[in-house]
């Protein structure tokens, strides 16, 4: 347990992805199979401890501190597990046996304890652990690790250490419950690769490459099929022996967030690939709408009623007892279409083919996406291609609508994180509002990317040399530098003074040459907004 607590501490204090992987690998080396399994289930936030609730932690802390002091402390620290771990009195005569307690012991105790006995169990552990171990122990109970490791990164670490393909690990992952005994034993080559035919597993998705200019010649309607690229999130919906799961594209189980999707019954087993959208098939919502539903576990009935979701299905990986990934796109889509018709599902829409005559025709279709909120562009799929996990070059292309771009003026800058932590790399920018003498710059957005390392150095230098004011970590700069900012979409928003917000703004070019008074105006942006709605 102490070793696992050290791992969590190391993870929280490193920002580099590779360093995090190294820390996980080192911990795997020091741990046995069962500990590895439990630990990963904690990092991937997949361990559920039903008998010990987070509220119990707060209750127990009251044995040692009164509410007022606890609340002041919690308010300062901002994290329940950390607050309690710090406040808990350090006992002088700790039981030495506790330093060798394993993670497995702890988890089994938490899973098996009788509810009545739970407070005593927790207190006993807290009394005998050191501060860092207390923190990790409480984190297991409260969840919300915040150590900056995605489940994908954790799986990458296992695949690296055991020299296994990450796609295989992802496929097996959801077929087993923590501590994933079969997966770890297969990694250690103690057992053969387990069969997972009857489980609603996640299958690594096939990804598309952006269509570049030298690919244009490949595209003709005989070889390639076109579909709209819907602007939602990529999901995989799986039903196997009446167990239904919804996965994100990275393999996270997001079923809890979408009961409106998974609480349906199906007459057959399947695995669909598609885009999750807000709204209904008749009236689809924008990506902005969908955001109200993302990252919310167990949404309220009201929220579901006000903002329902549906799936635009464009591919099938498994239908009627059969893995069909070896069939062609055309055949898979036929099976998919038949399936949707048979099941009569109101929340699954078949992604129709977009018919085109030639590449020019397709270009015209792509331009249309600018007027429609739901399409991000087009998808192009080689008609006779099979479903290959990963990002093979050739069979699938994404042909996105061009981003918009405007010229803005740099207003504020802040230091970045990780690799960029000493450079001013977060930029807040604005456009002109009002006329003549009353003209002012109003903020419209923030960008952190799009520039090269060389450009970053120049921007950093400009900011340091042109600071006019400081507000904590933020520097206000001389309003002279024009940036060309590219963005995917524009929406109304209360976040910025301008009342507008851009989707994924990034720095396209630094216009050292352009005077600030020639930057764009709020009217220019509003015109784009009107085009879109």
């Amino acid at each position: 347990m102490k070793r696992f607590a050290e791992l969590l501490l190391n993870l929280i204090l490193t920002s580099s992805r590779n360093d995090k992987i190294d820390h996980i690998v080192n911990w795997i080396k020091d741990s046995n199979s069962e500990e590895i399994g439990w630990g990963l289930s904690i990092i991937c936030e997949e361990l559920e401890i039903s008998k010990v609730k987070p509220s119990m932690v707060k209750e127990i802390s009251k044995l040692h501190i009164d509410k007022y002091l606890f609340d002041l402390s919690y308010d300062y620290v901002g994290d329940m597990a950390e607050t309690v771990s710090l406040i808990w009195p350090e006992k002088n005569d700790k039981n030495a046996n506790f330093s060798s307690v394993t993670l497995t012991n702890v988890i089994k105790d938490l899973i098996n304890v009788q509810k009545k006995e739970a407070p005593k169990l927790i207190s006993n552990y807290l009394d005998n652990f050191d501060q860092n171990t207390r923190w990790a122990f409480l984190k297991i109970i409260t969840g919300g690790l915040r150590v900056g490791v995605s489940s994908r990164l954790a799986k990458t670490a296992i695949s690296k250490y055991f020299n296994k393909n990450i796609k295989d690990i992802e496929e097996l992952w959801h077929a087993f419950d923590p501590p994933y005994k079969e997966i770890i034993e297969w990694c250690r080559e103690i057992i053969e690769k387990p069969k997972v035919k009857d489980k609603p597993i996640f299958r690594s998705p096939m990804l598309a490459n952006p269509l570049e200019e030298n690919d244009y010649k490949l595209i003709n309607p005989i070889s390639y099929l076109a579909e709209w690229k819907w602007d939602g999130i990529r999901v995989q919906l799986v039903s196997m022996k009446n167990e239904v799961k919804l996965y994100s594209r990275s393999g996270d189980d997001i079923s809890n967030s979408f009961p409106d999707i998974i609480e349906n019954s199906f007459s057959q087993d399947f695995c669909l690939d598609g885009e999750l959208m807000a709204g209904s098939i008749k009236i689809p919502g924008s990506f902005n709408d969908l955001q109200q539903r993302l990252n919310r576990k167990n949404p309220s009935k009201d929220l579901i009623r006000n903002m329902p979701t549906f799936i635009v299905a464009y591919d099938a990986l498994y239908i009627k007892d059969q893995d069909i990934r070896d069939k062609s796109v055309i055949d898979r889509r036929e099976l998919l279409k038949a399936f949707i018709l048979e099941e009569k599902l109101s929340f699954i829409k078949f992604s129709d083919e977009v018919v085109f005559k030639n590449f020019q025709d397709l270009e015209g279709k792509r331009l249309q996406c600018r007027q429609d909120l739901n399409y991000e562009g087009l998808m192009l799929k080689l008609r006779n291609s099979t479903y290959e996990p990963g990002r093979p070059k050739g069979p699938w292309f994404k042909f996105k609508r061009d981003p918009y771009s405007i010229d803005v003026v740099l207003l504020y800058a802040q230091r970045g994180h990780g690799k960029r932590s000493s450079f001013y790399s977060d930029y807040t920018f604005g456009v002109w509002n009002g006329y003549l003498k009353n003209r002012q710059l109003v903020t419209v957005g923030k960008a952190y990317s799009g520039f090269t390392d060389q450009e970053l150095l120049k921007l950093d230098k400009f900011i340091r040399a042109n600071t006019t004011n400081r507000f904590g970590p933020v520097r206000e700069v001389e309003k002279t530098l024009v940036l060309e900012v590219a963005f995917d979409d524009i929406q109304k928003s209360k976040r910025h003074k301008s009342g507008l917000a851009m989707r994924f703004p990034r720095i396209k070019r630094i216009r050292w040459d352009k005077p600030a008074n020639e930057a764009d105006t709020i009217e220019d942006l509003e015109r784009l907004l009107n085009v879109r709605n």
Partner: protein
Amino acid sequence: MKVDWIKKTKEGIQVKDGSFFVDPIYPVKKAIITHGHADHARAGHEHVIATLETLAIMKERYGNNFCKNSTVLKYHEKLTIEEVKIFLAPAGHVLGSAQVVMNFANQVITVSGDYKRQDDPTCAAFEPIKSDIFITEATFALPVFKHPNANTQINLLIKSILNFPERCHVIGVYSLGKAQRLIKMLRNNGWHNTIYLHGSLVKICNLYEKFGIDLGDLEPATIQDKPEKPHDFYKGKLILAPPSALADRWSRRFPDPILGMASGWMTVKQRAKQRGINLPLILSDHADWNEILTTIKEVSPKEVWITHGAEEALIYECSKNNLTAKALSIIGYESDTDL
């Protein structure tokens, strides 16, 4: 308790209608200064009374003209101003740091300045003085702050340097007090290698040495004059810098640095993370929650006044023990940056 000879004004703690002030924020005629940190020791007073060390620190930082005239007051040496009997007692915060003990009209009032109770080989230990009113700081007055024994943190640092011979350690330390304490404790724990210093730490380290505190081999953390490439030269080395330099481009010249910070604030993991700190060292020159409560018990005042910091929790805790406590809320003492 009725007290009419000492009160809080915008300048800070005023005694006898302005006869003198303790650690005033704005220039005054006569000031007693508890210690050399910039928020307590400001330039521009006419007459400054402090320990020899504190005066030397002020002179080093502000130049010879930091005041018109000064009076050296040793610990426990007596001085009377306008019938107020005064002496200084060690506060254990930094070199020369003192509490101001004042006696008038049969009332003893002590201003703690900043203080700590843990061992510090670079300054005299805090002495509790029985007082009627104890005017205390409360920087870390929350039950979550329990500073571990400082030696454990020094050993964490040594262990980390040995574990990562290919990288260098850049540790953020406040230039007065923390830097010298960290160096001296490293020496006492057997670390005798050269320690490299950011330019802004050099002067005060030299000053400490003049006062007889041997800090071992120190060199400026420069890059031009080294025999090898700076990248190779600094592998496995320890560099100390003010906290602001950690987030600055300055720290980028070193090979794949492990960034550390020695501060009481490093208690909170997410706070260390926010600042991009890889190696948080909980090493504070302020009293933690238990030290403050113990100190109040030992001083056994009838009232506690709080200059700055987390007042609410301390006021609450005092009132639980039937002790009157109030916040002076002096604006200008940095309560949120033990850097």
